[in-house]
């Protein structure tokens, strides 16, 4: 061994020794964080991980070419906006944020081996995993809702082609038609969303098809969000056009007849049915043991959104089992993504954890073409109960629907899309 070789070996030995002892050098090994699902939760988590921890290698796995916002998608139904206004391409998002984007679907999560198997057969390993699969529909709870019935009765509850289909079919109806909607039992994605939809279909009928009628069948005992504000709008704006019936749980669906029978008795036939099915955590979470609360939702630690089922796997967004009163909303998913990104950053860098995360929700609903209402809340982690608790005295509702809030609602959309996925449009 000559001197040069010895120096080289000694240098390597020093590096190894330091790497073994210093948390800072260990952090330099570029931890590999994989995010499954690029909705409001996953895209935000991926982006903020890169912000909070620029050395982390972040991979987003998302099969769709475009992000499409569910919030404001009800405005498509009367033609105020198009699908393009709600869409952002993942390609631009990935390159602008230094992310690797794998356009594929995840089949299995092997939490013991920290490895994913994709639909293409490819395997992807991770140091930390964030799962943001959204909701999936529990069709087994709707007897008769077979493939043909599903095609005939669009849910339009995942914004995209279904929303366009519902709009087109609504617009193709003759004046004098009967349209019917079904709202599933809570919890479901976006508590005020169905009532916003009812309002905007009401607006469409009032302006275009005033001899028609919308019947709203709600499986819940009452309007679940912004109740008085929606009731006031329906009474003052859509009297005789929108009729609301609570406690209407589905017993049987007959797609061929366009007819639905209810458990309380009675069958209703409509020219167009919009059936929003009962919901549970995304299929990926259900199939991989993450949905450990009633076999429907994913239990998490609200300090980090780490799964209560598997270590180093975090779950955010609509598929979590939230604390009482926590809505399943895009805004909440965005906030949860940031808390998870911060928690992972602090843990990997061996820095102090955030011990009292505070998150907020703001949810706008349009009730006419230009007027909107909101509900807001601030949630703070309680070390005592280990839950997120709505801060007393904070949050609240609009005093009344207004055009000013309509302007703020669209500003909210612009800003949260920029924050979540960026401003690059298709």
């Amino acid at each position, binding site marked *: 061994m000559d001197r040069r070789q*010895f120096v080289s070996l000694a240098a390597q030995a020093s590096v190894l020794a330091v790497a073994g002892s210093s948390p800072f050098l260990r952090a330099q090994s570029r931890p590999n964080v994989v995010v499954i699902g690029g909705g409001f939760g996953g895209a935000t988590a991926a982006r903020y991980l890169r912000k909070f921890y620029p050395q982390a290698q972040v991979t987003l796995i998302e099969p769709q070419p475009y992000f499409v916002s569910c919030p404001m998608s009800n405005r498509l139904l009367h033609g105020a906006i198009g699908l393009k206004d709600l869409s952002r391409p993942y390609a631009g998002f990935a390159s602008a944020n230094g992310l690797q984007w794998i356009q594929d679907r995840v089949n299995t999560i092997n939490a013991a081996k920290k490895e994913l198997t994709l639909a293409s057969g490819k395997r992807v390993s991770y140091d930390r995993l964030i799962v943001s699969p959204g909701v999936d529909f529990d069709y087994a709870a709707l007897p008769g809702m077979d493939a043909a019935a599903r095609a005939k009765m669009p849910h339009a509850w995942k914004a995209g082609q279904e929303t366009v289909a519902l709009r087109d079919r609504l617009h193709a109806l003759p004046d004098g038609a009967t349209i019917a909607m079904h709202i599933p039992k809570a919890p479901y994605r976006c508590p005020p969303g169905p009532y916003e939809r009812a309002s905007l279909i009401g607006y469409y009928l009032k302006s275009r098809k005033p001899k028609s009628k919308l019947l709203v069948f709600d499986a819940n005992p009452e309007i679940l969000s912004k109740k008085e504000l929606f009731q006031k709008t329906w009474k003052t704006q859509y009297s005789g056009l929108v009729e609301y019936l609570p406690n209407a749980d589905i017993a049987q669906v007959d797609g061929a007849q366009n007819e639905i029978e209810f458990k309380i008795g009675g069958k209703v036939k409509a020219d167009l049915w919009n059936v929003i099915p009962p919901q549970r955590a995304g299929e990926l979470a259900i199939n991989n043991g993450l949905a450990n609360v009633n076999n429907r939702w994913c239990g998490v630690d609200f300090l980090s959104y780490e799964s209560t089922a598997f270590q180093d796997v975090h779950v955010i967004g609509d598929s979590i089992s939230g604390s009482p009163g926590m809505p399943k909303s895009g805004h909440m998913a965005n906030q949860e993504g940031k808390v998870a990104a911060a928690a992972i950053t602090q843990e990997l860098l061996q820095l102090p954890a955030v011990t009292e*995360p505070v998150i907020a929700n703001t949810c706008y609903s349009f009730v006419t073409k230009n007027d909107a209402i909101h509900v807001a809340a601030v949630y703070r982690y309680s070390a005592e109960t280990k839950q997120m608790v709505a801060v007393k005295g904070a*949050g*609240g509702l609009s005093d009344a629907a207004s055009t000013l809030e309509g302007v703020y609602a669209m500003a909210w959309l612009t800003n949260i899309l920029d924050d979540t996925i960026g401003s690059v449009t298709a």
Partner: protein
Amino acid sequence: MVNVFKITFSNLRIAAALSIFCAGIALPSYAQTDMNVRLMAATCQSCHGKEGRAQGVGLRLSGQSEEELERKLLGYRSGQIKGTVMHQHAKGYTEAELKALARHFAQFK
């Protein structure tokens, strides 16, 4: 012996280089900032934009002084300033948290 000295000297240089590496790169600047404030500010950005540079009337936080931001946030919290929604949000935070957020967003000109 001369060689050993040289080798030791080389090791010292490597050690020195490594310590510069640790100080300059491996100990990143964000590690020195408080994640409590960074995370809380991040949650504001959903509506108020990156660095508070939101689009839309009245939503921009950047370009304001710490005093101005603090006056508004505490005003919303106490109820002296009424907004459509901001007074409802501000009541969810402590005065100390709102002051820290004012300081954070005042750095973006």
